[in-house]
């Protein structure tokens, strides 16, 4: 553990710390951010009356639109002269939002990312290749500062130029790779094409996040690279990566609760659900100065794993995010997460986990075509084997999604690979013209 005195703090002490910090941040934002002054007043909430985490239920939620309408600096709680850096959301959904960091924020963020690496088993002896994009996206610099804080040798490659990534991975003796899971797969494939077996390299840990991925994809990456792959979680509105991280037990992500309060709410009633039940993840930042967020609705769907973890950290875990409610597709009235498709593909020999969902209209009905790559190592000689494979993929996806679909098998490596967040959905339904 990078900060054992905090990460393994007794629960009672942790909760007292959370209450004290929550009270402080509620008072700070009420005094300095007009949006919160107005919201709290409208809800009749007095930050001075806050005495327990249960009182959070009385506090209004913050949503993405609040941050958009405050573009660019409207939600900053610290004076501009104290802000030393800005990042923005990666814009996967809608307009970008801007977040600001004070020197103290950057310092704490570095600690939290150092915890993230240590959680995955990394030490100052490791060599970390940071392949998240550097720039406005929080991934690159967040992963960079954390790796340096840990004391590891940090290689700031940023994204892109996959062959060079492989070359560096091999030549620099890299032991930890930090990137999106879909890019990790592309790196493994590219290495194979270059005649390099990643399993023969010193690489031992993958720190992967910034997009939803499945357990079967994890196993595939671990097998292809000969590594332990852990999931990390964060979003720019809350801080960036380093909000929660998996430990080597790979069973849920420890939420760094000394800095963030996690709640899971029912998306319909907006009430908190009991631990263990699925719902939308809501975060309150406890220590951020630049842009604290109060009960921020992430749109990510997960649940709390209430049982203590054997690693000794007392922070509760959230289950890997299976989907973002923004990514959720509504197909003929059924809610579908693309990650469910990936999960199914990972269990079928003969196909690769790369897919593209193409949504269109046939008459008034939604039509779903899932394009799936045949695995390059799959020996194809008979048409009926392909037809059998196609039927199996169709049947298994349909049973997972409860929606009927068409499956199109495509040649290996024909679905565009992404160097950042994977694009899995092509929605042509909105381009049907104004009939």
């Amino acid at each position: 553990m990078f900060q054992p005195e905090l990460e393994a703090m007794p629960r009672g002490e942790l909760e007292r710390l959370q209450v004290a910090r929550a009270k402080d941040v509620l008072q700070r934002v009420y005094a300095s951010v007009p949006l919160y002054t107005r919201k709290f007043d409208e809800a009749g909430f007095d930050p001075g009356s806050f005495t327990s985490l249960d009182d959070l239920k009385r506090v209004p939620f913050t949503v993405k639109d609040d941050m958009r309408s405050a573009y660019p600096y409207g939600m900053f709680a610290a004076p501009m002269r104290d802000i030393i850096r800005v990042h923005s959301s990666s814009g996967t959904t809608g307009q970008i939002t801007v977040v600001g960091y004070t020197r103290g924020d950057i310092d704490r963020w570095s600690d939290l990312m150092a915890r993230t690496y240590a959680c995955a088993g990394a030490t100052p002896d490791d060599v970390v290749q940071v392949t998240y994009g550097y720039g406005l996206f929080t991934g690159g610099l967040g992963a960079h500062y954390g790796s340096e804080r840990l004391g590891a040798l940090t290689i700031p490659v940023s994204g892109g130029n996959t062959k060079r990534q492989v070359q560096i991975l091999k030549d620099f003796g890299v032991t930890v790779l930090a990137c999106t899971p879909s890019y990790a797969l592309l790196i493994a494939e590219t290495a194979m094409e270059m005649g390099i077996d990643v399993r023969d390299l010193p690489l031992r840990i993958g720190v992967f996040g910034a997009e939803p991925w499945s357990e079967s994809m994890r196993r595939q990456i671990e097998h292809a690279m000969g590594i332990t792959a852990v999931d990390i979680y964060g979003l720019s509105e809350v801080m960036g990566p380093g909000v929660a991280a998996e430990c080597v037990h790979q069973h849920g992500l420890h939420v760094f609760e000394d800095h963030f309060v996690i709640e899971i709410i029912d998306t319909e009633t907006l009430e908190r659900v009991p631990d263990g039940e699925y719902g939308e993840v809501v975060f309150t930042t406890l220590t951020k100065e630049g842009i604290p967020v109060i009960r921020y609705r992430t749109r990510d769907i997960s649940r709390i794993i209430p049982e203590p973890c054997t690693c000794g950290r007392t922070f509760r875990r959230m289950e890997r995010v299976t989907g973002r409610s923004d990514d959720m597709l509504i197909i003929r009235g059924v809610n579908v997460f693309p990650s469910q498709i990936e999960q199914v593909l990972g269990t079928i020999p003969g196909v690769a986990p790369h897919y593209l969902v193409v949504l269109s209209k046939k008459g008034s009905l939604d039509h779903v075509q899932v394009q799936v790559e045949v695995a390059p190592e799959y020996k194809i000689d008979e048409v009926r084997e392909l037809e059998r494979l196609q039927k199996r993929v169709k049947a298994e996806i349909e049973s997972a999604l409860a929606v009927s679909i068409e499956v199109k098998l495509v040649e290996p490596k024909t679905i565009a690979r992404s160097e950042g967040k994977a694009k899995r959905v092509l929605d042509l339904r909105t381009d049907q013209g104004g009939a």
Partner: protein
Amino acid sequence: MIDQVSVFLENKTGRLAELCRTLGSAGIDMHALMVADTEEFGVVRIICDTPQAARDLLDGSGFSASVTPVLAVEIPDRPGGLADVLEALGAKGVSVEYAYCFVEPLGAAAVDIFKVDAPGADAALAAAGFRALSPAELYTPDVV
């Protein structure tokens, strides 16, 4: 048994031409080609020189290729010739997954390619007086 190169292709205009050009540019001569297709995709089967090298070349050029062992049989060029061969295979319980035929320009006999599901097909044919062809009789084998 001889080596056949099997390639998975999506039904896209020009894709078969790209496949043939890839082999042609590498100086690999094709002797026979058969396409089995459905509405969306096809499997192309090729008898060509240096099939292992052809497979590696195609795999490295963005195709999904594999090598499949198939049986090549010389068929007497007379009515009932093919039927005799199939009956000889059937009598030994060998079933044929697919077959296609081509005529070598110099010979009087046709050559049939069979994908069979059981070992012992060569022996069944030999016993019935037919001859399975060796790789070198049809194409330039790979240098091992």
